[in-house]
């Protein structure tokens, strides 16, 4: 039944995509020139190689098809007997060498330019982790996580009940990286857990994010706009779901954005202080905890706490989630070498308290324990 519905829905949507696609397709079948000097040069080099290859194929395939037509047995019953020609062999070794040299020269100069990250005007540290990006502005007091913003309901289509997909489906995030135009921005790329790769096609920047190492790359965007990309190194289950959005804005707007981020941070600090002082009961913690859990933990431990066998442990009835509170706090705040991330800085103290409380009481874990933001603060102070 479900399969049939899927098929019908599939065919219907296929038809509509094919029709609408015919118009768009032309634009989406080649590399985009992009907006930076290097991306445009990369595009031009790409087009140059494409045309060189097309030209070579005309010659080679042309000769082949000539043979197919004029040297077929019916037309050419007695084969020639030559099987060697030093002259030809020298020619067809030399010509490719010359063509390759012709292609290498612009490639070398572009490569050297792309790898020259010296004299930046500002730096951003990019950290990949399963399955989100973290941006830390080294010259401003700004850092934040950037998560996929497309709701799960849009991509989960197992019963042909997926919601309509937005234009930037899977290419939209909650917090974009904002950078000023006409500024040489250096990216310091690294990772927390496995290797990821940070790629934004329109600025021709692709750099692997490798745990324990920091890679350097840069861009300088001349035109304001929103540029979208994706992680390009297989990094586990949700590799396809960690997009990148870079928003280039004028220098004035960038200054305004920095100011708004500063204000946001102050507000968050205040809210944290209020949260510690506030009184928290189980219900309130459970409500906030469920929200935080579904947003940050369910992708691995599943909404019902059942985990994924062999990869992410179940929290329902788990030793840590039903055992001593301190071990539970350590696991969530500091993470583990076995693959659990440190959430100490990703969530506010109130959220940490709530999510731990939630795990200790949801799905029949019923320990009755409550952990308050003040407990978290004390725990962090004790670290």
């Amino acid at each position: 039944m479900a399969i049939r519905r899927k098929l019908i829905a599939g065919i219907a949507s296929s038809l509509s995509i094919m029709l609408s696609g015919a118009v768009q397709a032309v634009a989406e079948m080649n590399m985009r020139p992009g907006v930076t000097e290097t991306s445009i040069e990369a595009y031009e080099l790409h087009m140059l190689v494409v045309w060189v290859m097309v030209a070579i194929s005309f010659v080679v395939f042309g000769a082949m098809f000539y043979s197919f037509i004029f040297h077929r047995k019916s037309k050419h019953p007695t084969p020639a007997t030559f099987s060697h020609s030093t002259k030809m062999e020298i020619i067809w070794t030399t010509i490719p060498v010359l063509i390759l040299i012709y292609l290498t020269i612009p490639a070398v100069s572009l490569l050297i330019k792309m790898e020259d990250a010296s004299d930046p005007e500002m730096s951003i540290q990019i950290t990949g982790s399963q399955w989100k990006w973290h941006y830390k502005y080294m010259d401003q007091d700004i850092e934040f996580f950037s998560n996929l913003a497309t709701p799960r309901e849009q991509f989960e289509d197992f019963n042909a009940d997926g919601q309509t997909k937005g234009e930037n489906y899977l290419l939209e995030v909650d917090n974009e990286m904002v950078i000023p135009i006409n500024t040489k921005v250096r990216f310091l790329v690294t990772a927390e857990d496995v290797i990821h790769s940070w790629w934004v096609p329109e600025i021709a920047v692709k750099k692997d994010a490798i745990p324990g190492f920091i890679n350097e790359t840069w861009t300088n965007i001349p035109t304001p706009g929103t540029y979208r990309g994706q992680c390009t190194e297989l990094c586990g289950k949700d590799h396809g779901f960690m997009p990148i959005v870079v928003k280039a804005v004028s220098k004035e707007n960038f200054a305004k954005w920095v100011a708004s981020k500063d204000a946001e941070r102050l507000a968050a600090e205040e809210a944290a202080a209020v949260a510690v002082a506030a009184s928290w009961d189980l219900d309130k913690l459970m409500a906030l905890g469920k929200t935080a859990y579904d947003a940050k933990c369910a992708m691995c431990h599943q909404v019902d706490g059942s985990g994924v066998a062999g990869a992410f442990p179940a929290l329902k009835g788990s030793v840590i989630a039903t055992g001593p509170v301190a071990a539970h706090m350590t696991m969530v705040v500091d993470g583990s070498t076995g693959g659990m991330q440190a959430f100490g800085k990703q969530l506010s103290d109130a959220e940490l308290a709530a999510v731990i409380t939630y795990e200790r009481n949801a799905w029949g874990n019923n320990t009755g324990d409550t952990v308050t933001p003040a407990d978290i603060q004390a725990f962090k102070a004790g670290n």
Partner: protein
Amino acid sequence: MSDHHPTGITRWLYTTNHKDIGSMYLWFSFIMFLIGGAMAMVIRAELYQPGLQFVQPEFFNQMTTMHGLIMVFGAVMPSMVGLANWLIPMMIGAPDMALPRMNNWSFWILPFAFTLLLSSFLMEGGAPNFGWTFYAPLSTTYGPPSTDFFILGVHMMGISSIMGAINVIVTVFNMRAPGMTLMKMPLFVWTWLITAFLLIMVMPVLAGTVTMMLTDRHFGTSFFDAAGGGDPVMFQHIFWFFGHPEVYIMILPAFGVVSEIIPAFSRKKLFGYSSMVYATASIALLSFIVWAHHMFAVGMPVAGELFFMIATMLIAVPTGVKVFNWVATMWQGSLTFETPMLFSIAFVILFTIGGFSGVMLAMAPVDFQYHDTYFVVAHFHYVLFPGAIFGTTAAVYYWLPKWTGKMYNETSGKIHFWLSMIFVNLTFFPMHFSGLAGMPRRIPDYNMMFADFNMWASIGAFGLGLTQVYFLVTIIMAIRGGKKADEKQWDGATGLEWDALPSPAPYHTFSTPPKVD
């Protein structure tokens, strides 16, 4: 009598006969091809349109990983060893392979290795899910429990390949009939000899890689873990030191196959025999110094990137020489287009297209835009499917009359060819476009802007999958009830197997060596 052979299951279990072992390799690789192909169908069904319709992302990753592993190690490599077993002794006038017991063992390891690998689907955490390149730390710290079975499986396949390679080298050096000098050997034997050296050089490196993974996972070492002073990038260097020669291991024997078939149907000697041998050898040598072209994005020093870019582009020169020689062989020949010839011609054209995209990928500054996108998937399928697979297919059609004494139905063969040709391009050509437009590889879902080409690719893939079943039927019909084949089925064919042996080739051949002049 020379054609006496044992019967029953023990014939196959205990056999040391190169023909039996060759057949077992070929059937095994075809089964693996169907299994790996079924996984490709799952991948393409999920990618038919945006959204997750059939499988969860974690299972999708297991599908891509196992598809890649099975196709590379289970389908392509054993098929080449199968051809080597059948053909090398007949081509050089030897009674059998030099080390027949080892030959038996190197085949019989494989079913166990792949049962082990496939059984990981039933384990907690599922099958390996880190891509066929199994980059650390995704495969070490973060690998599922079945990773250890994967490691053992890879070790077993490696042992099998190394034994197969030793066997080829010893056979070629010691068992040639009198007068069969090295420079008289058919090109297929040459390409396999060079492949065997590549195998012996790099399979131990692969074994070392998986062993380091094992100790990182269980014995407290940190070869690939930065937290313990190791380096995940070192993993990639070691892996690709194996991996790049590996791609030539998969393609060189196919070069040999078409170098036999094109002259036969052009009724003209292979053009530039010795330059073919030298080109093959230089490709093999160069393949050891280009590995990091798979790693332009890991943050190598510019000097390193320049070196690997230029070395890689150099490989285009000997590869070009081969293509030009094939074209020159056909030039002014007297061509006919039977099924093996059709597959060989398609090989030359489509492999060349894969070579073009290879040169594009070698250009480091543009590779940043291609790397790890569907453009790469298109590239390597153009060299693997119309390359390695069409090469083997051509070989099967060409030598089937010699092996079985039966002819396939030419019309069926041609239908198989045209369906393969249409669908292989429908499947893989659009992947160039989706890659250029920005679609990363190894993702289960994508934005609508990639939808059109993914749909075409999926439709092509389903067609291509069915076409392979048609191939199976064609071959079985030929074996069961094909017309009787002539001793020299192809009038342009040359070589000992056609000139000195009846069809089917008897169970034991060349007990006394033929005279080669």
